[in-house]
């Protein structure tokens, strides 16, 4: 593996190997006073963030540091990008300083893919527009494996702003690869146009990017009893330029995860949220804090999953191109 740009690139074997490595790293660090492994000594990881982030950036930094890599953080707001430098020039500059790996978050879909063609470094996509956020999907899969044992045959319901969600896109592709069934629930305005025509048709027959073998509904209550894991998405106001629903209150009544809805989920079902949460909007505060919610587990697994990705990209012999 040279880059991690999209979960569509991950075959079952690769995805499973990454998750197994994350689990082994978690075990290796369990109960240790000094959480430091020498594995990536002398390797330099640059995080290049053109969008705000708390958990993803911090998580990559911690993952790199626990494996003894040197981690440099660049945020666009405080960099030469604010003076008008292009992404390409910034990336080439960082690569010239010896970055072995660039972790990029950018508001434009496809930014990570472009970057991978410009620099010799390994590129990890930490979120590009509404396209992909592969490490988020991997940490969600790791959390679901912990809680449900396996993803094979499990039904994962994704509710909320699917239209703008790179988390949803990444998860759909990864979780289906791992054997899960995906059900999307959202108001029609927050689903990609024409998705009802794609879903269920041509599943696996041609390009998975274009046809999602998912089922789609608009009624959250109807979906709850058959759900093994409920993934609640944030309503991304920063990407909404127009009226997608009448009011926050109305969205919350129809699609918010309330305590009453939590009770209608099966006993074993687990609740995920990629964060940051809007409590009272898409998820009630009491639900977010309940033991049924695996939200802090997701964050904890995020560090191990990112360590695993860095290990697979940086620790082995360079693949011959």
């Amino acid at each position, binding site marked *: *593996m040279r880059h991690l740009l999209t979960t569509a690139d991950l075959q079952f074997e690769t995805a499973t*190997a990454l998750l*197994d*490595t994350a689990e*082994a*790293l978690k*075990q*290796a660090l369990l109960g*240790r006073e*000094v959480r*430091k*492994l*020498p*594995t990536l000594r002398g390797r330099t990881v640059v995080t290049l963030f053109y969008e705000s982030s708390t958990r993803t950036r911090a998580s990559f930094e911690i993952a790199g540091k626990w*494996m003894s890599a040197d981690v440099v953080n660049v945020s666009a707001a405080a960099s030469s990008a604010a003076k008008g430098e292009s992404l390409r020039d910034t990336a080439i500059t960082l690569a010239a300083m010896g970055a072995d790996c660039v972790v990029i978050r950018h508001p434009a879909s496809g930014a990570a893919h472009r970057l991978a063609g410009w620099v010799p470094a390994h590129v990890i996509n930490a979120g590009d527009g509404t396209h992909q956020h592969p490490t988020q999907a991997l940490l969600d899969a790791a959390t679901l494996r912990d809680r449900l044992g396996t993803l094979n045959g499990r039904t994962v319901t994704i509710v909320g702003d699917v239209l703008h969600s790179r988390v949803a896109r990444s998860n759909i592709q990864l979780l289906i690869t791992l054997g899960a069934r995906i059900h999307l629930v959202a108001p029609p305005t927050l689903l990609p146009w024409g998705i009802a025509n794609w879903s269920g048709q041509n599943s696996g027959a041609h390009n998975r990017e274009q046809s999602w073998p998912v089922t789609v509904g608009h009624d959250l209550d109807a979906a709850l009893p058959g759900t093994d894991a409920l993934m609640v998405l944030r309503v991304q106001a920063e990407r909404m330029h127009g009226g997608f629903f009448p009011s926050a209150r109305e969205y919350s009544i129809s699609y918010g995860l309330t305590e009453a809805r939590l009770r209608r989920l099966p006993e074993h079902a687990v609740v995920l949220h990629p964060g940051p949460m809007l409590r009272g909007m898409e998820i009630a505060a009491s639900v977010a804090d309940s033991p049924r919610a695996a939200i802090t587990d997701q964050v904890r697994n995020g560090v191990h999953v990112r360590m695993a990705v860095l*290990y*697979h990209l940086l*620790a*082995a*012999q*360079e*693949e011959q191109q």
Partner: protein
Amino acid sequence: MSSPFGTGAAGSPRQHELLSAADVARIVARIAHQIIERTAPQPVVLLGIPTRGVPLVHRLADRIREFGGTLAGVGTLDVTLYRDDLRRRPTRPLQPTELPAGGLDDALVVLVDDVLYSGRTVAAALDAVREYGRPRAVQLAVLVDRGHRELPIRADYVGKNVPTSPEEEVGVLLVETDGTDAVVIRRGPR
């Protein structure tokens, strides 16, 4: 778990058996006696190095208990993250590390592996051990010592010394991982 030599049958012209199943059993019993002699009455912590050090460590632990020795714990120690040759090979999968509940501080630790060759695995294991605690002493037990050390490392307990050439491969087969017990040697080139 696949055999270290793929599916090739034992006894093919380029491969011959060095130790039989009975030899392996006798050697494990002998090393168990030696560990008791050298360490009693101090209890020891046995740590197997994956992959084939793990079944070996459990067999050794069973024999030591059977012969009246005392164990402070049995565990496994994956050294992959501490290797100095990671960047010379494709990605190595990680194996589980399970340390005894008592930890390694002030313990008498015996590392257990199948083959001692360059010594680099053991060097990585010593680095890994240091991360988990400060043992009173660390010793090394191996089923086969095939020579060609690249580091100043020697084993305290050796099942069998086997003079080899670097072109040869030594394969330890164990029931738990390979379905049969044997040590075989195969002549190169690969």
